[in-house]
Structures are given as structure tokens and as C-alpha cells.
């Protein structure tokens, strides 16, 4: 393909000279027509392939100036290659383009030759920018040109057509193209969608930048004879359009306007926190999907709140009988080492069934004899179910025995209390801490 480059350069120079010779005193419409005619001549010669590459290289070069993302250039050129059927309908003169058969090969060559064909790129840019301000007689051609600029081809759409419709078609076309593209990973699909969005946003910016390019092309009108300068001019154009995108941190093919950037940041933050919550909530790892995870989180939070209610009820029921040695437990509880290890508790947790049973009987009777409403009876039951499902320190027979003994008469109350006292006093004496001086020290 390198051997074809001098020919292409020659073709480019002739085109520049041709256009410069013709369009000095013609109107814009005539200039357009002469350009079409010239292109027809070029096609009837045996340079169809090269001309196509030339054209698409120019498209790619122009888009490089516009989008400033040379990473995306290959995608853009591929799209403009695929554009051809649409152009065939919209602009019949272009119907003589041979349809591209090997997209990526020609794309790569077009990309290589893009550096050499800056003049042609600028020429096309100039023609487009001039025709953009034409009366509606040329509007169809304008639409075809604008579509050919890598915007994705929609058949003879006016420039004023609805953008949403266009973008819809774009996405469909992108997906079709995606199925054709060989050796691309799955993330390509996402990126292409981002591309479509980005081009939506670029549409307005490009329209605004057309004035810029047209003014630069007027400068270029003087210097048209020496086509070596046109590459510099073109780079100047891309430099002028650069500061619009310089602060954007987006990966390849992602949308770069501020709203979608903020939205992306928000989505990343949400997914990161969701992941953190997934680690935090047990049993949440198997669930996929945000709604199921939210339900699981809600259930977990509610179960924790019910556990707190149940435990506070338990403490409220237990406390007044144990006033005399609360200081002892206060001392024990302040030591987190003791709290963490709980040696005596670990020793007695295996035979804890009996005291726990007594405790629960007491609690149930307290609630029932207090004459509270049924809404108050329910939370301990719920809490019981939760605590038995939780893997902490409650024996398995806790729930069964408690429900079995729920309708015990209140005459066993005092006996249970006596047992409880005995256990507690014993427990308090078996603690290895010098509790009394310590609590005095702490409370002082």
C-alpha cells in the first residue's frame, strides 16, 4: 500500500489545483458541482480504490480534528466505510464507490495515509463548511456530506432532523457493525454505545466549530497553491478545537460531556458501595441484581433492629433483680479483653440451656402479665426467630423449649428467680477480677 501513496498524493495535488483553478469566482453551488464532476472523472479512471481511501482518510482526519481522540479514529473510519450504502442513496454521484469488502484492512491503510493527505482532508472540510450555509436546494447534498463525515449514515436526512431519531438509528447501525467487526471483545459494545452518545453531543459542537474551520479555510484559500502548508493549517484547526476536550477523563469511546461524566462517577460510587454492603451482609454474595440485594439488606437491617429490641427487652426484664452485682458486670464489661474472650461464658455456654430457658420464661411472663397489647408480644417472637437463625451463642433447643414452656403458670416465677440468683451469684464470685476496688475507682 505504500507504493500507492505517491499516486494518491499526486491525485490530491491535482484535485487541489483543479479546484483552485475552477472555484475562484464561482458560487458555492457551482463549486460543489465541479467537485462532483471532478470526482466522477476520478472514478472513471482506474483510481477508484485510491480515491476511496483518500476520501475516507480525509473523513478520518477531519474527525481527528473534531473529536481530538485519535484513539477512536479506527472506529470512526470503520463507520464511515460502512456508511457507503447510505451515501449511495443520498448522493447518487457517490454511488460509484465500490463497496468496501475488507473493512479493517482499508481502515488501516486509510489511517496510514491520513498523515499524508492533510490537504485533501482540509479540502473536504472546506467544501462541507461552505455548503453548510447553502440554501435548501443543496440541503440534501449537505445532509449527505454531513452524514459522510463519520456521523453515521441516515438516508438523506436533513441536518435539522431530530437528533433522538438519529441516535436511535445510530445505535442500531452500530450494533450491526459490531457484529461484523472481527476480533473485538465484549466491551466494544458498551464503547460503541458511548460513541453514539458522544457523537450526539458532538453534533452541536461541530456545528459551532464550522465557523471556525470556514474562517481558517479562507486563510487557506490564499495558500492553496502550495499544498504543503495545508497540513500545518489542518493541525492548527485541530489545535484550535483541542481545549474543548482537554480536561476530560474518559476512556475510549465514553461520553465526555459533564452530565454523563457525573453520572458515570455516581454509578461507579453506587456499585462500589453495593459491593461493600455485599461483603457486610451475610448471605448477600449469592444474590445478583440490585433489587434483590436491596431486599436482603433491608431484611438484615430489620432483623438487627429487632434483635436490639429483643435484647433491650431482655435487659429490661432482667435488670431489677440483679441490682446488687451490676457493678461487677460493669467492671467486667469495661474490660474489652474480658468482653471479647468471655472465658466463663464460653465455659458455660454449653450448659446454658437451662438458665436461658428460665430467662425466657421470665420474659414471656413479664410481658404477658404486664397486659401489653399484641403488638408488643410480637417483637420478642420475631427476635427469637432471628436470633435462632443467627449463629451466635444461643443453643438450638432454646426456641423449642421456650415455646413449649410458654404457658407455664406464674407460680414458677419465684423458683426461677431463685435459680437465677444462685447462678448469678456463683458467676459473680467465679470472676477472676478484683471487682470491688476497680468499680470504685471507675465510679469515682
Amino acid at each position: 500500500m505504500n507504493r500507492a501513496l505517491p499516486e494518491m498524493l499526486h491525485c490530491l495535488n491535482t484535485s487541489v489545483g483543479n479546484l483552485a483553478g475552477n472555484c475562484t469566482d464561482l458560487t458555492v453551488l457551482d463549486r460543489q458541482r465541479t467537485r462532483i464532476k471532478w470526482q466522477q472523472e476520478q472514478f472513471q479512471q482506474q483510481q477508484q480504490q485510491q480515491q476511496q481511501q483518500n476520501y475516507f482518510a480525509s473523513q478520518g482526519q477531519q474527525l481527528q480534528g473534531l473529536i481530538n481522540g485519535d484513539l477512536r479514529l479506527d472506529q470512526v473510519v470503520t463507520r464511515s466505510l460502512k456508511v457507503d450504502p447510505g451515501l449511495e442513496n443520498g448522493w447518487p454521484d457517490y454511488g460509484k464507490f465500490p463497496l468496501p469488502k475488507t473493512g479493517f484492512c482499508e481502515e488501516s491503510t486509510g489511517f496510514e495515509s491520513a498523515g499524508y493527505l492533510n490537504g485533501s482532508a482540509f479540502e473536504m472540510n472546506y467544501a462541507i463548511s461552505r455548503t453548510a450555509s447553502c440554501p435548501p436546494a443543496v440541503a440534501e447534498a449537505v445532509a449527505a456530506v454531513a452524514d459522510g463525515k463519520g456521523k453515521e449514515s441516515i438516508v438523506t436526512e436533513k441536518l435539522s432532523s431530530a437528533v433522538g431519531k438519529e441516535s436511535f438509528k445510530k445505535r442500531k447501525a452500530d450494533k450491526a457493525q459490531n457484529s461484523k467487526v472481527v476480533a473485538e471483545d465484549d466491551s466494544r459494545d458498551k464503547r460503541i454505545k458511548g460513541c453514539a452518545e458522544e457523537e450526539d453531543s458532538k453534533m452541536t459542537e461541530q456545528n459551532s466549530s464550522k465557523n471556525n474551520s470556514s474562517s481558517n479555510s479562507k486563510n487557506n484559500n490564499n495558500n492553496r497553491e502550495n499544498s504543503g502548508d495545508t497540513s500545518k493549517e489542518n493541525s492548527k484547526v485541530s489545535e484550535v478545537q483541542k481545549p474543548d476536550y482537554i480536561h476530560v477523563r474518559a476512556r475510549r469511546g465514553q461520553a465526555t460531556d459533564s452530565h454523563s461524566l457525573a453520572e458515570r462517577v455516581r454509578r461507579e460510587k453506587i456499585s462500589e458501595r453495593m459491593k461493600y454492603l455485599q461483603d457486610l451482609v451475610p448471605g448477600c454474595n449469592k444474590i445478583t441484581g440490585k433489587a434483590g440485594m436491596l431486599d436482603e439488606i433491608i431484611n438484615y437491617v430489620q432483623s438487627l433492629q429487632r434483635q436490639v429490641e429483643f435484647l433491650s427487652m431482655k435487659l429490661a426484664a432482667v435488670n431489677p433483680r440483679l441490682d446488687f452485682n451490676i457493678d461487677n458486670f460493669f467492671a467486667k464489661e469495661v474490660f474489652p479483653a474480658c468482653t471479647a474472650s468471655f472465658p466463663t461464658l464460653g465455659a458455660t455456654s454449653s450448659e446454658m440451656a437451662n438458665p436461658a430457658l428460665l430467662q425466657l420464661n421470665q420474659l414471656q411472663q413479664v410481658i404477658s402479665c404486664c397486659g401489653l397489647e399484641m403488638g408488643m408480644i410480637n417483637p420478642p417472637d420475631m427476635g427469637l426467630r432471628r436470633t435462632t437463625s443467627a449463629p451466635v451463642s444461643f443453643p438450638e433447643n432454646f426456641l423449642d423449649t421456650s415455646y413449649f414452656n410458654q404457658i407455664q403458670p406464674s407460680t414458677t416465677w419465684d423458683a426461677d428467680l431463685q435459680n437465677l440468683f444462685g447462678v448469678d451469684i456463683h458467676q459473680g464470685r467465679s470472676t477472676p477480677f478484683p471487682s470491688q476496688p476497680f468499680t470504685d475507682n471507675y465510679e469515682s
Partner: protein
Amino acid sequence: MNPQNLSLNPTSIRSKFTKTFLRALTRINNRRPPISPSREIYQRYRRVKIAADASMASAVGSRRTWSRAILWKIRNQRRYRALVSRRISTHAMTKRDPRENYGREVGHGSADELRRIVPGGEAMDFCSLLGETAHYIKCLNTQVQVMRSIADLYST
């Protein structure tokens, strides 16, 4: 013999909550019993529950939205109970959150429910709601562990 030296991490939320909650428990236990014994347990339960919530929230501090909301709620409940008649205060107590209908958007069923559950989550956006939920879950876990160990100590 200073307990601060013996504790593993005195500035951790767990030990702060334990200290505050046990102090509140002793205060509750030292309170003389009310006249009517039928409501005694219920009132004690309310007090213990409020003490647990308040000590948890004050252990966390005012950095988090949920702890601020809990403290605000408790303070307002106390003021209500002092000022307004008993009927209104019981109404406010049975209702889970008095600001339940405040600033709630329609839609997003589960997210909305999460907003209702997490205290102070009504006026949050979804992103910070998730962060608050994570912290709230961690603190609730700590609260449950400490309270369960205290209850086990009492009951054994």
C-alpha cells in the same frame, strides 16, 4: 488501676458504646420503680431501648447522618414528652419515625423502604444512603454483640 489502660482500644465505637450503655443501664436500675407495676416493664424497655440507641449514636458522634437523626429524634421525643400530652407522645412512640412522610419520593420501592429503615435516610440521595446503610449495619452489629454479651452475663 485505670480501665482506660486496660482496654484494647478505648476510642473504638464498641468500647465507647459499652461504657455509655452500661452507665445508662445503672442509671435506669437505680431509678425508683413507678407506681403502676403494669407499665413498669414496658417503660423500662423503652428506656433501655432509648439508652441503647442514644449511646450508640453518641459513640458514633455527629459525623454520620443516621446518628444525628437518632439523637435528634430522641431529643425531640423527650421534649414532646415533657411538653405535649401523653397521647401525642405515645403516638410518636408507636410510630417508627415521625418524619416518615417527609421528603420522600414516589417510586423505587426497595430503596424507599431502605430510606425508611435507616434513620435520617429520607432526605438522602441513593449514593449516600448506601454509605450510611453500611455504617449503620456495622454499628448495629456491634450493638447487638455487646448487648447480647451483657444479657448473657446477666442471665447466666
